[in-house]
């Protein structure tokens, strides 16, 4: 099923720069309904408060990391099917394996291009 351009997307990153980059790419790809969160905890609060169709998250964040947020999402009956794309500088094989085991939908290593983001989105929403 192709991605719905009207779906609400949550971009989770503690860095303003990265949130703006991801938002801009998503905007260019045709997604305009985008919200932001600075860490996993804030993201979980937003996800539990209103429906989202997709989450793009960093790994290293204060308060709650991306991987902990992912585990919380997969453990939550209301959120467990929500697609989560990790965009992270954690490029170790062990990190990727950890993310896969936690139930990540796909994984992008920083720095990345708009094409990579588009390709991953297509794979997630095929």
């Amino acid at each position, binding site marked *: 099923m192709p991605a719905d351009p009207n779906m609400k997307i949550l971009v989770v990153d503690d*860095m*303003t*720069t990265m949130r703006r*980059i991801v938002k*801009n790419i998503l905007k*260019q790809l045709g997604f305009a309904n985008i919200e932001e969160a600075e860490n996993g905890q804030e993201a979980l609060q937003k996800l539990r408060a209103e429906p989202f169709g997709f989450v793009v998250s960093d790994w290293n964040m204060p308060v709650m990391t991306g991987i902990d947020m992912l585990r919380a999402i997969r453990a939550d009956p209301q959120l467990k099917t929500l697609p989560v794309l990790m965009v992270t500088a954690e490029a170790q094989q062990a990190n990727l394996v950890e993310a896969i085991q936690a139930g990540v939908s796909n994984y992008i290593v920083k720095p990345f291009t*708009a094409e990579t983001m588009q390709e991953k989105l297509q794979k997630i929403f095929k």
Partner: protein
Amino acid sequence: MHNGNLKLYAELGELARFVEHAIRALSQAGAPIASSSTGLPAATAHLIDLSKLTEDGALEVMRLTELIQDNRSRMLKELGAISEILETVDCTTLAQRLQKTVSGLAQDDKLLMEIMTALSFQDLVAQRVKKLVGILNDVQDKLMELVVVFGIQEDVNGAAVTGKTGELLKQLEASKTTAIKQNVADEILAQFGFN
């Protein structure tokens, strides 16, 4: 028996001298350690500044890029509308040229997006700086432990250690670790006739 005691005393005296020498050597090494330790907070501050500067720079480039993107988007719409008008008044050749220009300009959108995504370097810089700051803090803590153990309370210029280092030294002074060790050495020395 008497000779045995003398030999034992001589050996203990030698041992006491070795201990005193070792403590002095360690104390001398402590001064440069203290100096390095006091420089570490400044290094940490520089790294944090570096991270902030790259973030400010990246955000400014991003702001300007977004402005260019918005302006271009408006211009492309306008050119598209003009092209349609030209077609309706049968200026086909002119309309086609305009369309070609619009297509050429659209290629720049990709480049602008690449500029935008290239700014993600800032996030990588910030993460590495954070790791470096963590390492520096760890090294500083370890050096501080050494400084306290060696009892170095002044820097290489003889000035009293101030700031975090001084504060830590004051907090840890209560342990009197070095004094106790020196006392033990002095006690042993005294027992063997060293005054």
